[in-house]
């Protein structure tokens, strides 16, 4: 009887020890993974805020030794960062408006309506979503050149919106799908027309989805590099993604300014992508994964 209890106790202890070791291993692994994903970002911050006498030294200290903020003023003084950010902002706003408006139409047609050609339309969106941007770029460049649309911010936002639109439609379709059909039916009974159902019921109920679509399209255009680098040749139209890529670390731009530029550019997209990840995942997988 006593030996039995002791056995049970030691077995319980063993189990507890094993569980503790397992827990410790779990935390260590999680810490290692987090280090791997966050270190480059951390290093950007360290290289931004530290005077370069520390960073331009090998091996560099892994923790910041001193903090300065003058590099931001120097960055804006030496490079047309403000102009670049302004251009990026304008392109992004135009792409956002266009894309959000069009995705409401497409998402409603895909979500709430049954019609012939619905799955063909979905297929059409999927295929356009899968195409590498470069395939469209060369002929588009020739067309834009002929139509005198190079070096125009609205013209660039047109193509940006075209590339992100399918993903936005999938995001919004997923959100529209969650509006209970009974609510819509009740509205029709109460005398709403088909279009005012969208306007008065579906859209207000899908406000978070609309925000997600706006954010996704805004930052797609904000981040986009390839089209901007070819379709906007003149320095005055350069958006930040292209402008930043012209900075050369150490060679012509001091490292702390170089990294400060990267930080300024990324702060907003990082915050919004992290908040909206659920929606973006559902959009990128065309609704196959709800995130």
């Amino acid at each position, binding site marked *: 009887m006593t030996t039995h209890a002791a056995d049970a106790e030691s077995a319980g202890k063993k189990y507890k020890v094993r569980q503790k070791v397992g*827990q410790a291993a*779990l*935390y260590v*692994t*999680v810490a290692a*993974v987090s280090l791997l*994903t*966050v270190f*480059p970002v951390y*290093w*950007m911050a360290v290289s931004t805020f530290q005077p370069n006498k520390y*960073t331009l030294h*090998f*091996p*560099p200290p892994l923790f910041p030794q001193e903090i300065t903020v003058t590099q931001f003023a120097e960055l804006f003084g030496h490079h047309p960062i403000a102009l670049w950010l302004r251009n990026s902002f304008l392109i992004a706003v135009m792409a956002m408006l266009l894309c959000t408006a069009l995705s409401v*139409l*497409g998402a409603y047609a895909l979500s709430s*309506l*049954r*019609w012939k050609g*619905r799955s063909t*339309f979905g297929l059409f969106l*999927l295929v*356009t979503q*899968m*195409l590498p*941007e470069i*395939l*469209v770029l*060369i*002929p588009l*460049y*020739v*067309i834009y050149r002929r139509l005198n649309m190079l070096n125009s911010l609205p013209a660039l936002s047109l193509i940006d919106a*075209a590339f992100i639109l399918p993903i936005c439609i999938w995001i919004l379709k997923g959100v529209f799908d969650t509006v209970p*059909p*009974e609510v*819509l*039916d009740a509205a*029709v*009974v109460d005398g709403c027309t088909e279009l005012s*159902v969208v306007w008065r019921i579906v859209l207000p109920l899908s406000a978070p989805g609309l925000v997600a679509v706006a954010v996704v399209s805004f930052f797609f255009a*904000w981040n986009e590099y*390839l089209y901007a680098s070819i379709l906007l040749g003149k320095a005055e139209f350069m958006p930040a*993604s292209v402008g930043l*890529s012209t*900075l050369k*670390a150490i060679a012509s731009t001091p490292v702390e300014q170089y*990294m400060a530029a990267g*930080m300024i*550019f*990324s702060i907003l*997209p*990082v915050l919004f992508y*992290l908040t909206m*990840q659920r929606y973006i*995942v559902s959009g990128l997988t065309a609704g*196959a*994964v709800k*995130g």
Partner: protein
Amino acid sequence: MTDLAAGRGFDPSTGSGHRKLNPSEQTNTPARARKRIHWLPYALVLPIILYEGLLIVYPIAQGIYGSFTRIELASKNPPVWVGWDNYARMFRDPEFWKVIQTTLTFTGLVIFVALGAGLCTALLFNRPFRARPVARGMLMMPWALPEVPVVMIFIWILSPQFGVVNILARMLPGVAENPQWLQVPGLAMGWMVLIASWKAFPFYSLVILAALQAVPQELYEAAKVDGASPFQLFWNITVPGIGTTLELLVVLASIFSFKQFTIIYLMTGGGPSGATETIVIRIYNTAFRFYDYSYATALGVAGFVVSLVIGIFFVILQARRAQENA
């Protein structure tokens, strides 16, 4: 207006000719009740079809046409029809085959590394532990970061003079000097794969995690009672449970890595000596560095065919997956 629409949209096969519905009918067929304006969906998607048609389909058609011509943008001459010349040149071009090889290597490695990392981290994050939301936020960091800053950070981290990665490299036996990370073909390719995977894997991790959480817990409980080992649990419950998701992600990952442009182009431009020149980079260089538009469009058509094939796979898997979800 409604009558006209109803008349045009009348479909005898479904028998939904009654446009004016009374409340009792609506309660019987609530989903049908609202389908009153038959042309509405077409009116809704028309602007989208036109928009995507003008900006994406039309340029691609132009590109396909252009690949059979000789285009000289500098001169005012119209394109000259040359038939299959550009394609004949492509198939004879040894560099084209090298580019295909590089593309396959890059794409294959990124699929493997990014999905592997995504699967491992998803399994890790599927376990309960304190601070999991914070750790998950940190995990998503690379994915949330735009590509251009990613490039900037890694150019700095890989700097042969001051790059912080050299601290680790120096710990390896036989490394006495900081390597020229992006000047050595094998190393450059390795870094392109690692950086592209680093940027992409959190997305895969998130998707796999969602799939893991949908696997019914009772299955694990029941199998544990029956004395199944952790490996058996993984192989017989987890793998089948997330199988379709993994299939979908393999296809999605091959599309994403096949499309990868910004990271490679801004870090190596395809070099050193073509070691990282995937077909996407090659098309860009041919068009905008060598101004050989016609040949670039032919390469573009080759790329189009490849992405179309992968795209079809995606469509099939996605449809299957959507059916399962429904």
